[in-house]
Structure formats: structure tokens, C-alpha cells
């Protein structure tokens, strides 16, 4: 599949000169990167390179000291996480962050909470608009359940599901919000080959069917090189590579970061 056939558009997310410090520690130093619409962008790098911090900056969990983020042409310096959600940025977490006590269905429904407009009083009475809204959203969520093939566990509390399925439910919860930008933090960590293949298929299908732009962090180089349109390499909080998978693979700095250099 070539990039043009998937209709990759203009820049959706433009990150400029981001610096993030925790006290004296610089987690990110002067990082710039651009993600275009409908593309799959991978962020890779050794442990502690600042990949997760980068995602946390993009969706407003961390507030960078310097730099600017432009999302859909709107520049911003800092933003609260729930405002980022409102703008259409959804994410999954490296360590599963599902709502353990709730069923799969409720977890996915929570992903759509932002779109629910009725007041809590209407919901308490569950009359007219509140019930209609609930049923409408249920229908949308059921489509995602079908898409992810988790019909059989929809009423199961997520705490009781095996790890691979939990990862899938978390993807589902992010998808339920109908995001335009989806941030995936190691969606395939700790999975066996079959589960990885499933997850890759879901990621590609999401990108293809819904046109969702995806930024993902992944350690499996095979996966990264296969599915990405664009790869960004971080090391010690600095960007050391940026480009198509083929270019990045041959970049001497990237090879040095991964394999070490002789001094």
C-alpha cells in the first residue's frame, strides 16, 4: 500500500521545539516533529528516551516548559488532558489503564462520555432524551465491539480478562471516542506473535477504515518498519532520526543508539 493511495493529507499535529523538565532532569530537549493526517507515525528509541513523555505532552498530561504544539492549525502551549480529549486526541497506556471494576461494555461507553449531552438529572430520571442518547451510543459502541471481536466478553468485568484482551479493550475505549488522533503507547508489549499480528491488523484497519491518524510507540522493530509511514527516533530526550522507515533504518546515529558505537 503506497502512501498516496491512503490519501495522506496535510500536517495534523505539529510539535515545535518542545522542552520538558522535571526539576533538573531534562526529559525532552528541543524536540520538533510533524504528523500528517491519516498517517501512522511510530516513535521509537531505547528505554528512557522520552517516548512516553512525548505522548504525555501531546495529550496534555505533562506541560512542557518550552515549545509549542499546533493541532489542527490551533497553536497551544499548555492544555489540560480533558481539553485534549475534547479536541479529538485519544490514547492508550503502556501499563493498561482500564477501569477494572467496570464491564467491557461500560469501559467502552465511558470512552463516549464526552459526547453525552444530557444532564445528570435527566439521566437519573432516564426519560426521553437520556435513554435515547444511551441507546444511540450503545449502538456505536457495539460496532466497535464487533470490529475488535470482543462480543463474547462484553459483560465481563475487565479485571477478569487476560492481558491480550485487556489491551484490545483499551484500544476499543480509545476508539469509542472517535478520535482524529490516536496515541498508542506500546500496544503490543508483552504479547505473543499471534496477538501481535491481531493488534497490527486492528491498528491498520483503524487507520484504513476510519482514517484515524495514529502515533504509536513500539519496541518491535519488525512491526514498526512494516506498518509505519513515518518513524521518529528519540534517544536521551533528543530526536536523532526522522523519516520514512527505510531512511531511519540506515541512519548511522540510530544504528549507534541501538547497537552502540566503538569509541
Amino acid at each position, binding site marked *: 500500500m503506497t502512501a498516496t493511495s491512503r490519501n495522506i493529507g496535510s500536517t495534523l499535529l505539529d510539535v515545535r521545539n518542545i522542552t520538558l523538565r522535571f526539576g533538573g532532569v531534562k526529559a525532552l530537549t528541543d524536540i520538533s516533529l510533524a504528523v500528517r493526517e491519516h498517517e501512522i507515525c511510530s516513535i521509537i528509541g531505547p528505554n528512557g528516551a522520552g517516548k512516553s513523555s512525548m505522548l504525555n505532552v501531546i495529550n496534555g498530561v505533562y506541560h512542557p516548559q518550552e515549545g509549542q504544539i499546533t493541532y489542527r492549525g490551533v497553536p497551544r502551549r499548555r492544555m489540560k488532558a*480533558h481539553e485534549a*480529549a475534547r479536541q479529538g486526541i485519544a490514547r492508550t497506556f503502556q501499563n493498561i*489503564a482500564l*477501569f477494572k471494576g*467496570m464491564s467491557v461494555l*461500560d469501559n467502552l461507553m*465511558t470512552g463516549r*462520555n464526552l459526547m453525552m449531552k444530557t444532564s445528570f438529572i435527566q439521566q437519573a430520571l432516564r426519560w426521553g432524551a437520556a435513554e435515547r442518547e444511551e441507546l444511540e451510543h450503545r449502538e456505536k459502541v457495539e460496532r466497535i465491539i464487533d470490529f475488535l471481536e470482543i462480543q463474547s466478553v462484553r459483560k465481563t468485568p475487565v479485571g477478569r480478562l487476560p492481558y491480550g484482551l485487556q489491551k484490545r479493550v483499551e484500544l476499543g475505549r480509545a476508539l469509542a471516542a472517535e478520535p482524529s488522533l490516536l496515541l498508542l503507547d506500546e500496544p503490543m508489549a508483552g504479547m505473543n506473535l499471534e496477538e501481535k499480528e491481531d493488534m497490527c491488523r486492528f491498528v491498520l484497519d483503524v487507520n484504513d477504515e476510519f482514517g484515524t491518524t495514529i502515533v504509536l510507540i513500539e519496541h518491535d522493530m519488525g512491526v514498526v518498519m512494516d506498518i509505519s509511514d513515518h518513524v521518529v527516533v528519540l534517544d536521551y530526550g533528543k530526536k536523532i532520526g526522522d523519516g520514512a522507515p527505510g531512511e531511519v533504518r540506515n541512519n548511522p546515529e540510530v544504528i549507534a543508539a541501538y547497537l552502540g558505537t566503538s569509541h
Partner: protein
Amino acid sequence: MIYRESGQFKTSYRADQAIFPIPQDRYALFALLAFAFIAVPLGANDYWLGSILIPFLILSLAALGLNILTGYCGQLSLGSAAFMAVGAYAAYNFQLRLPELPLLLDFLLAGLVAAAVGIVFGVPSLRIKGFYLAVATLAAQFFIEWALTKFGWFSNHSASGVISPQPMTILGYTLTTQADKYLLVLGIVSVLALLAKNLVRSATGRAWMAVRDMDVAAEVIGIRILHTKLLAFAVSSFYCGVAGALWAFAYLGTVDAQAFDLNRSFQILFMVIIGGVGSILGSFLGAAFIVLLPILLNLLGHLFGGAVRQDVLSNLELITFGALIIFFLIVEPHGLARLWQITKEKLRLWPFPH
């Protein structure tokens, strides 16, 4: 076998999302409500109505309120009794100072006043969690108890700080008998329980549970944490406030701030823990356990304990009660509601193992 649901297929999401998706459950609830609304007031004597069932229902309502806050939103609170006191004193003052208001509106307004106070004492929850928050809510408990005793205005300057509400009148009909009061309490509790159930299975309830289970993830999917927590404090305090108003008006009739002391808060918290954290049914089961079991033990003691001395007997009752609490918590730490749920799941298959 007994509890068969094979052949029951749901063909719409509406049917799937009903409170009781299984018809047997629905019929059982209707039967229970019919029994409670019709048979009990006709059959039970004043002692049962006035001294057992009314306090049981009112405490269930308070436990329901605390369960919304602690069970669903995950915010531990030791101030439930204080919010009950706010409700009781507010309803008393509305009745006293604005006598033209109808009684049910007094209760509603009392609940809203308690909700407002609850919001104020809920603000620290943004910064502190768990046991630390519980200690912070103790401030509500002590401050409100003190304020209601200290400022005479709240009790209309009665010398002893005691409030005695007027008899309850609804649409010109004065509720005098215990059966009347019981029906009023039962009606209010039933309606509020239904509203609570609707709330916890809606977007609001999901937001509460999301904050309880993983607050960072909740924020990332667009839930406003402070707003969600304060709404839980408000709704919870509303329920406790209405319960407090009923405690003063329908149960005790004459009440002072000491009726809503820390012990009461603990009692309500125990109801929630034993009944089931995060369960509407659990609030009722917990209240039943705490209120009804000692009475049952007392009856049993008198039936079988003829040979035992009275003081030994009452101590034996306490010992048995404590042992039963420990027993149930070991058998099922998630409370009686969970036990009931497991029983139902087992009954679906019984007598077959799978």
C-alpha cells in the same frame, strides 16, 4: 434450574439495558414492592413499623448516599451523619420559617442544602485521597455537629438544642399513625433508590466509576475530575440529607445534633462495607444486617436462652453479632450483594456443576 433464563432472548439494546434484564428478577421485585406497600402496613404492628422498619429504611437511604460517594466514586467519607444532620435541621427550619411550603418540598430543599454543604466539604478531595480524605471529612462531622449546637438559630433557640418538627402534613392529610409514616418513608426511599440506580448506570455513574478505578485515564478520555467528584459529593449528601430529615420527622420526632454523631457515620460506613461497596442493593442488605440482625439475635436469645442470665445473654448477642460480621467479611469481602450475585449465578446452573 430454578432460575432458568434459557429461551429468553433480548432483541433490543433497550431490553438488554433494563435494570432487571431477567423477568424472574423483575417479578420478584414487583412482589417485594407489593408486599412492602400493601401487606406490611396492614399486617405489622406499630413496634415493627416504628422501631424497626422505618429506621431500617432511613438508614438504607443514608447508606445508599454514602455508597454513591464511596462505592461508586471511590471517595471515602466519615461525614455521612453530619450531612444527615444538615438535612434534618434544614427541613426543620424550612417547616418552621416557611410554613406555606409543602412538606415534600421541605425535604427536597433540605436535601439540596445538604448537597451544597457536601460540595464545600468535598473540595479537599481534589488533592487528597483514601484514608487522608476520610480524615478530612471528619472535619465536616465535627464542625457541623458543633455549629448546630453552638448557634441557637438552627434549633430555633431551644434551650436544650433539641428540634421537634411539627406533625407531617401532606395535602391537608396529617400523618399520625406509624403505618402512614412508614408508607411515606418507603415511598421516598423507593423513588430515590430508583433514581440512584438510573444514575449509576448512566454516563454520570460511569464517570464516577472511572474516577474511582483510574483517575488519570479518566481525565485523558475527557472526564473532568473535580466536577465529577463534587457531583458525587453533592448527590451523596443530598441522599444523606433527605435521610436525616426523615430521621427527625418520621422516626424520632425530637432530635438533637448528638443523634448524628460520629458513631452514626461509622454505622453507615459499616452498612456499606458489609452490604457491598458499589452496589445499590448492597446498601439495603447492609442496613438490614446492621439494624435487623441484632433484633433477630435478641429474639432468638429470648427463645432459647431461658436458662442464661439476662446480662450474659445480651453480651452473647453482641459476641454473635461481631462474629457474624467477621464471618461474612471473610466469606465475601465484597459484601452481601456480591454473595447474592454469586448465589444467583449458581442457581442458573443448579443442580448441574457447569
